């Protein structure tokens, strides 16, 4: 499993009833679902005409969706690689770890 270029999430022994393998797999699914939902939302704003004269996707909208998904996917991958290169888990995201 390698979405975002990560391997499976590190076993976290989070003390629940689930095995670590199940927890890691669920986390993977949640990450993918989250990205999917953000693509749906973002590409809807970018590609769908808001006048709703009919219920069909136009040719232009369909092509726009295809390109938008590909671009978002690419952007997601590039930024995942970038963050990994920066070792960002120790960086900005940890702004609250000092609490």
């Amino acid at each position, binding site marked *: 499993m390698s979405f975002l270029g990560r391997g499976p999430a590190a076993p976290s022994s989070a003390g629940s009833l689930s095995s670590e393998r199940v927890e890691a797999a*669920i986390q993977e699914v949640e990450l993918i679902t989250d990205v999917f939902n953000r693509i749906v939302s973002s590409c809807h704003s970018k*590609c769908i005409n808001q006048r709703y004269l009919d219920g069909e996707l136009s040719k232009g909208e369909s092509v726009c969706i295809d390109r938008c998904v590909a671009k978002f996917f690419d952007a997601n991958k590039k930024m995942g690689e970038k963050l990994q290169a920066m070792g960002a888990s120790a960086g900005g995201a940890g702004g609250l770890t000092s609490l």
Partner: protein
Amino acid sequence: MDFSQMNAAEQAQMSRILEKKQMQDFLKMYSNLVERCFTTCCNDFTSKALSSKEEQCLSHCADKFLKHSERVGARFAELNAEQMGVTDK
């Protein structure tokens, strides 16, 4: 996704959790759709009844949203499969 490394008990647990999550995701998608289409289609509050124009707009908006989600899902699955293929090699 590939759950083949799991044992039977884990796979069973996994599919129970996923089933529940799927229902939650569906409901979230649904209420998101309603909010989005309402925001776009309903802007006249001189009456409390939906006008036929508003109803039609909501109906088209829902149709389009579902087709949009479906298309995004298809592309997403393709790109995901592609990427898996590359990285698993």
